């Protein structure tokens, strides 16, 4: 995320589920503050009366002391914890459980890879990476999968996290009340570049989303100009095509992100940097110094090949 630095906080909710969790937190914080203050007050009392045995007014009564332990250590916790249990695990949880399929307007499959995100829209055949578009104020059924190790899909402002476990298809509801960009990131340690495995959820009004979807469904734009044509040739003949897909071309690789419309995306390499000249050039020429351990190899390219590749990729809108 480039411009507009801001917290990506569960306490800044943009969906009913995230708001419920945030409310739950504030209640728990209030209760915790009361318990903590009470315990500190007792310890302070112990310090104030360090010379005198027993309690004020009551004095020394072993039965009363035991009663205190039972009251504070058993009875009050039992009541408070029962309330917490009902509130959190029976009430709030209804909003954060996987949605029933009939209640959602569409399904998106999110697949975690070391260290990027693949997003598939089975109903329209769209495949993209690291930038998840959804219609605003629409309930989306998100299916979380993994292509390799365990990752966790987490957009703190929209909902709780859900792990992406190989062999499992976990589901979660994705819902954004307003149009906007919401940062998501991997929340289960998944290896070297776990820290650089983020994505954006772009929530748009229905019409904007539909036009985005139409654009994504289209095959890649043919290269414009001699340099881009040369870039396409370098892409197809070099190593690139063995790992990336560009629909409408012979590039069919599935190791790295689908690049059919890569130029329309705001960031590169799972939010490692902005998608514009400068970073794109660096990323192609020396990915290992930007994201050490990434599966993207540094390529031996001539200056001309390199420039033409950049020209080609920048045209894939």
């Amino acid at each position, binding site marked *: 995320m480039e411009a507009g630095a801001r917290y990506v906080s569960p306490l800044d909710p943009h969906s009913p589920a995230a708001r419920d969790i945030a409310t739950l937190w504030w209640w728990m914080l209030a209760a915790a503050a009361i318990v903590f203050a009470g315990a500190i007050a007792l310890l302070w009392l112990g310090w104030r009366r360090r010379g005198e045995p027993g309690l004020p007014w009551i004095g020394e009564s072993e039965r009363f002391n035991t009663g205190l332990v039972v009251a504070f*250590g058993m009875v009050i916790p039992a009541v408070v914890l029962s309330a917490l249990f009902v509130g959190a695990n029976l009430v709030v949880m209804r909003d954060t459980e996987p949605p029933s399929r009939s209640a959602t307007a569409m399904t998106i499959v999110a697949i975690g890879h070391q260290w990027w995100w693949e997003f598939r829209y089975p109903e329209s055949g769209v495949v993209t990476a690291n930038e998840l578009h959804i219609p605003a104020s629409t309930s989306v059924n998100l299916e979380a999968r993994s292509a390799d190790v365990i990752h966790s899909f987490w957009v703190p402002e929209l909902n709780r996290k859900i792990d992406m476990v190989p062999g499992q298809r976990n589901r979660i509801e994705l819902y954004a009340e307003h149009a906007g960009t919401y940062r998501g990131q991997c929340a289960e340690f998944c290896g070297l570049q776990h820290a650089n495995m983020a994505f954006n959820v772009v929530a748009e009004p229905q019409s904007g989303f539909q036009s985005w979807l139409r654009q994504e469904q289209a095959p890649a734009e043919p290269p414009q100009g001699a340099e881009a044509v040369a870039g396409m040739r370098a892409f197809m003949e070099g190593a690139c095509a063995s790992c990336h897909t560009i629909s409408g071309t012979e590039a069919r690789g599935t190791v790295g992100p689908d690049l059919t419309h890569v130029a329309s995306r705001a960031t590169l390499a799972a939010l490692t940097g902005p998608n514009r000249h400068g970073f794109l050039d660096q990323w192609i020429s020396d990915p290992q110094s930007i994201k050490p351990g990434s599966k993207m190899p540094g390529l031996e390219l001539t200056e001309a090949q390199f420039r033409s590749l950049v020209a080609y990729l920048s045209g894939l809108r």
Partner: protein
Amino acid sequence: MAIAIPPEARSRVERLESIWKEGSGIVGWLTTVDHKRIGILYFFTSLAFFAAGGVEALLIRTQLIGPNQGVVGPQTFDQLMTVHGVTMIFLFVVPMSVGAFGNYLLPLMIGARDMAFPRMNAVSYWIYLCSGIFIYVGLFTGNGPSAGWFNYVPLASRAYSPGPGIDFYALGLMFTGISTTAAAINIIVTIFKLRAPGMSINRMPLFCFAFLAVSFALVFALPPLNIALFLLELDRLLGFHFYDVGLGGNAILWQNLFWIFGHPEVYIIILPAFGIATSIIPTFTRRRMVAFPLVALAEILVAFIGFGVWAHHMFAVGLSSVTTIYFAAASLVIVIPSGIQLFAWITTIVTGTPRFQTPLLWIIGFIVLFILGGLSGVMFAAIPFDQQLTDTYFVVAHFHYVIFGAAVFPLLGGMYYWFPKVTGRMYHEGWGKTSFWLTFAGMNLTFFPMHILGLAGMPRRDYTYGGDLGWTALNAIETIGAYLLAAGLLTVAANLAVSLFRGAPAGADPWQGDTLEWSTSSPPPPYNYAVIPTVTSPYAMWDREDRDADVRNLAEGEKTLEQGHETASTSVVDAEWDEILEMPSRSWWPPVVAVALSGVFAFILLQRWLAAGIFLLLTFAAIGGWHWKEPQEA
């Protein structure tokens, strides 16, 4: 100051001195079976690992001091954070509490002359030392494990972690598990069979209840871990597919097995600390613990219920709602026994006449930190909140409040408290208090902001972060806090190290302590007690008539057992005289067994099966040699 020896008993004491005489020099330490010496070995070894884990933590914090730092790369960072966790949990806290405190203090507290199995005790230590070195060989050769301390598969499988790092982890933990299991069994038998006559179960100090609970928890918690590790090594070294999803394996199997061990482990870590707290509080508040039976019961219950909550570490993996709700309920239930103990400590302090000296300060710090860590812990039993905040810095904050605040603070308090007993000298009170406040401030400065970072969306285990996410200032504060924390801990170490040579003589009982260990000289003689004490309450040292009776017994030669290398054995529940046990003498076999076993693990790691087999035979040969003769004759 030794306890008063009546003149007519002098010859008996001299006889005991000669029978129990410890070997001198390095050979004496290598072959020792004395629980106090083994405890001291455990102490310094685990302290060294604490220092190593601390350096790792400082490197981690330095890397995170600001955005996009290059102090260490991702590869090193991942190894550091993994080995930091493994070190602190397996090589520091458990060996320090169970190995050092348990070994040194339990026999003294129950009036025994040694642990039930002195040579098994020695072998536990030597195996622990060798396994710790084994794990660090990995780190120092650049092959440290890097999949985090809970080492989730498939990340930890051969396909995604090809080097030997994970093998160092898996084999190292199995190796150290042998030591811990042996130590736990030893403690259980010692507590059951070697208590002083009259110390029926209900008169046992709460410290012993805590260690009994911990030892049982260890015996039952380690097998699932060992199975998980064994299956992992079958996958990694021999191509099995237990965790291989592509071939019908299951990645969640690892998580279940690991946390069936891992959550009880949390209580294994903090229960000894509770035991230390229940030793220090009565002494410094000059009154008996409030609600003693409830606290004893709570210690046992915590260890027991701890086995039924493991899946709360897995609420985000997509378990069914029914499963998560069950485990959330169980996790809430365990709050109750913790609440009982907490308010028993607080009520004892409030109703007593506390002396706010260094050991009690650490315990009060512990209480405050444990409340904070407990409160944030309870929040994780709220499933949606757990699913939102798990794997963020909020969790890192929570478990450091529990592990550092609730486990390490009492250990540090305990070091001050028993320092006079172990060394015969007093520490420096002023520096003791300074060290507490430095550590307390550093601890909170390091870990409190982590709650906020988690709520600001920072995941744990990120080796770097962008400057545009609002995380910079809090991270910088935490790193400064970590240095302050290190300064506090170094002050503790310096205070104790200087006091070892310059401290004022402490005498046998500088605190008017409540338990038996304060009745013997400081440091205690190798045989601990010239007379096997007779006990009539959990506060044996406060029963003056009983202790006077010990001195009379010494004069009359009653219960002195000076005919051989002997201690008393009593019945399990009522602690009635059972028999006199002939205790084994020093031996070379324990370190030899540990070294041979090291060969087994090293060659498994190198996949040199023949050599591993040879070392396994050597290990059995050493165990055979050990048992060739009755240990008393060796």
